């Protein structure tokens, strides 16, 4: 069947028809099939739903839709039942038949699957009222959980490609660029370069052809918004790309995507071929004179490829090392031609701005940072997931209102933003308004939007070491200060976590960190010392404790702690003794256990298995280690208690 839409009217007619047919079937079960939920068995759940509905003859009334990532990954696998918008989380595949039977047929709401507020154990049936969703402003993720990402018709029915309509019908490329400039949209990849300006520079280059690249090489550990957009709404990226290409005058585009994202890769592939089939990509799009097509290029697991010049080298098939800028890619990029590289999230913002207008868009956010930003809220937080919030929201709102606070009522210690290029914001800066400038000012950065929450059990030196290890491995090796400097930082940090730090180490870290910042060529090197410098700034006393007192205040660094069984608390249950992988625990039933420190590998198993009621296993560090009572051999619990009386 030829589905090609010949002109804009065709598209409008199609949309009308699609809307009508979707209204016929009132009840929709939206099954989240983002990577997170798929890992939890979402496809199995989907299958059972479809079977059960078939079995009960409900297929006329009920539609099961597999959607992209819903965002509330901590509750997955999950479904939302429309039109009411009832949210059911933590589902097992077999729960599908219960929902079909009790919810759809008997019309009952199922409390056991609903979201429960931790403190009050109150259940909330409607997705829109769950605090996690309530404070969010979904613009880019407007279609998350609403449409089937593998079906272009769903996207069209939700006003998809209407921004493209508007552009092709009534706007010149210059007007598009002006509109984007006016909206104040800035690059969402991290550096925050004004998107409109980038397009303008590229448009005004005389050299042809021009290229457009969507950067989906999301390498930051702890960030997955690009993947989520690709999995839940790939067409919004394609629409954004077509508009961008129209504005800069490109006829070929590339999507550079990580090979580690198989599902996103599959969906963008499907989306591109559907868009071609409908005449939205290819020659003379929708009967206009404008032609544009997209190719997919896979990355192969190199963090540095997220840097734009390295990415260009990678597409060209060269060694993916960054190049000196200027010339910027917008002037001289892919194969020496003017090239715009935009982050996936930036491109997904474009259709929204065009449809709703720059004035509307620029009302959201702060003075210099407009619109919304997607953050992946992970780490030690109750509601893990992907959130889209307006710029200028405070950390407090994100962590306590949306994130639901820290598990176990522990204290917030720091929030790490911006991945390995970012820094740690201390927990007492809760009122910080999140935008590009503020984050840079406190020594972190926006980055791609990872937000890792850390509680008091996190050692900041260890965190800094983790990130430096990462950047040291991923440094391409072109600049010696980055290659060797990261190695030197790592060596010193490792020494400190082992308790072999020297007093002058802190100054050395500071000095070397600043040197790396100044002397590196690309973004990777320029930002890699941030985790060290920001933790030095806000958590200097932790470094000092490691060096001077040989003490890890958070009790993380293995070489500075010991596991110890408190004799007054141990009940002699043998649980830790059975689980210990190295056989370092001595004792028997009803006898107080003793850890043989020479054999202990400090894996922490005993600490985890000791029942919370007993909690006899503790971690000791620094001076505490010298003040413990040593038992020579296991003593009967009873005898010990009497002895201590």
């Amino acid at each position, binding site marked *: 069947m030829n589905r090609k839409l010949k002109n804009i009217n065709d598209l409008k007619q199609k949309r009308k028809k699609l809307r009508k047919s979707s209204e016929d079937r009132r009840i929709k079960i939206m099954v989240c099939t983002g*990577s*997170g939920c*798929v*890992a*939890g068995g979402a496809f199995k759940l989907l299958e059972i739903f479809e079977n059960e509905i078939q079995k009960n003859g409900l297929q006329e009334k009920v539609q099961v839709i597999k959607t992209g990532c819903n965002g509330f*990954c*901590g509750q*997955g696998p999950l479904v939302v039942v429309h039109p009411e918008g009832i949210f059911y989380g933590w589902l097992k595949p077999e729960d599908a038949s219960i929902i079909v039977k009790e919810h759809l047929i008997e019309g009952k709401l199922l409390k056991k699957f609903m979201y429960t507020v931790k403190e009050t154990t109150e259940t909330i049936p409607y997705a829109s009222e769950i605090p996690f969703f309530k404070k969010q402003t979904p613009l880019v993720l407007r279609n998350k959980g609403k449409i089937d990402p593998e079906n272009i018709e769903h996207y069209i029915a939700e006003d998809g490609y209407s921004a493209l309509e508007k552009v092709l019908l009534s706007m010149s490329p210059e007007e598009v660029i002006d509109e984007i400039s006016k909206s104040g949209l800035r690059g969402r990849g991290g550096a925050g370069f004004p998107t409109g300006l980038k397009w303008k520079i590229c448009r005004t280059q005389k050299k042809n052809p021009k290229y457009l690249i969507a950067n989906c090489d*999301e*390498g*930051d*550990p*702890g*960030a*997955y918004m690009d*993947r989520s957009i690709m999995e839940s709404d790939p067409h919004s990226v394609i629409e954004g790309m077509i508009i961008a290409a129209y504005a800069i005058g490109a006829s070929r585009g590339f999507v550079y995507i990580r*090979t*580690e*994202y*198989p*599902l996103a890769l599959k969906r963008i592939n499907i989306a591109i071929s559907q868009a071609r089939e409908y005449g939205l990509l290819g020659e003379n799009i929708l009967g206009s004179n404008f032609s544009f097509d997209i*190719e997919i*290029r*896979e*990355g*192969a*697991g*190199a*963090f540095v490829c997220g840097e734009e010049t390295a990415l260009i080298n*990678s*597409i*060209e*098939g*060269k*060694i*993916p090392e960054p190049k000196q800028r200027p010339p910027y890619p917008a002037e001289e990029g892919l*194969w020496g031609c003017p090239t715009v590289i935009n982050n996936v999230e930036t491109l997904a913002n474009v259709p929204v701005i065009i449809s709703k207008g720059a004035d509307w868009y620029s009302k959201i956010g702060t003075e210099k940072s407009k619109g919304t930003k997607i953050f*992946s809220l*992970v*780490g*030690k937080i109750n509601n*893990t*997931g992907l959130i889209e919030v307006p710029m200028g929201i405070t950390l407090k709102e994100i962590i306590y209102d949306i994130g639901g606070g820290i598990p176990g009522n522990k204290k917030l210690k720091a929030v*790490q933003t911006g991945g390995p290029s970012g820094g740690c914001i201390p927990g007492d800066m809760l009122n910080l308004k999140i935008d590009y400038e503020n984050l840079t000012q406190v020594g972190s950065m926006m980055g791609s939007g*990872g937000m*890792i929450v*850390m509680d008091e059990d*996190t050692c900041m030196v260890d*965190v800094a070491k*983790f*990130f430096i290890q*990462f950047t040291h491995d*991923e440094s*391409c*090796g072109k600049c*010696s200060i980055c*290659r060797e400097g990261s190695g030197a930082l790592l060596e010193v940090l490792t020494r400190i976590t082992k308790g072999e730090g020297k007093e002058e180490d802190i100054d050395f870290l500071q000095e070397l960190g600043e040197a790396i910042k100044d002397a590196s060529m690309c973004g990777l090197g320029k930002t890699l010392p941030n985790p060290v410098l920001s933790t030095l700034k806000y958590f200097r006393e932790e470094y000092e404790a490691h060096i001077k007192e040989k003490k890890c205040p958070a009790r993380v660094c293995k070489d500075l702690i010991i596991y110890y069984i408190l004799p007054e608390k141990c009940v002699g249950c043998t649980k830790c003794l059975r689980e210990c992988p190295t056989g370092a625990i001595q004792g028997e039933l009803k006898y107080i256990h003793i850890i043989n420190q020479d054999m202990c590998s400090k*894996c*922490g198993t005993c600490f985890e298995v000791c029942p919370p009621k007993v909690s006899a296993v503790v971690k000791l560090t620094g001076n505490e280690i010298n003040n413990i009572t040593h038992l020579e051999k296991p003593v009967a619990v009873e005898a010990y208690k009497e002895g201590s009386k």
Partner: protein
Amino acid sequence: MEKDKKIGTALIVGGGIAGMQAALDLADSGIKVYMVEEKPGIGGIMSQLDKTFPTNDCAMCTMAPRLVSVGRHKDIEVISYAEIEEVKRNNGNFKVIVKKKPRYIKEDICTGCGACVNNCPTRRVIQIKESKGIKLDGEYSKVKEIIEKYRRIKGPLMPILHEINRVYYYFPEEVLRYVAQELGYPLTDVLRIATFYNAFSIKPRGKYTINVCMGTACYVRKSEMILDKFSELLKIKPEETTEDRLFTLRSVRCLGCCGLAPAVMIGNEIYGKVKLSDIQTIINKYKEKNE
């Protein structure tokens, strides 16, 4: 006296132990010797041996004095890192053309201190000769089709490597040589790209790559112990492959499933919230699939 006058010179091809002894004998009897050696330095295979048959003499002790003597002898001229191109003979007179490869170093100034070798950032890059006329067939016949599929697009190398990787899980040396030859790229470039990315390997990999996520979120949830457990059960270390070429164990940067930490990806499947006790079951699942 006229009769005793030694005339002419000798050229010795190869600076191994035999070549060195011959050169010394000739030079000691008054003949000028040119010694041409293919490698950058003389010494040959014997320098790699420990003991020699049948006397069990220490190889180095045998050759070291000869190395020194050859180097010092006023009548021996060592032309190393060179090849013989042509030998012409005219009534007992030989004319030899020797091609000397460039060393990119001023040989008359260099003291051989070794400092540059230790500090060269790319010293572990394998130096291999380009080769021509490789034909691939049998096991690797698919490579040809893959190259044909992408040859015409701009920047074909990455898509080709990706597809080869999907079929063979790693790049055998001859395949890389073939790719370089077909695309007309320098082999060193192809090799550097093949070793730059984490997803590629020049060592054999298993059918299933077990990627244990070491992203921040997983790390704080003890993904290191998950890796150790896989290592223990499969009896391989990270970056190694099981003997049956079924599994390769790796740690990976971030799978972007931070809500599911700790996460493991095997092939295209992701396992979230992995517990130590789940791991045997997961391994068995893949073993059964292949029986």
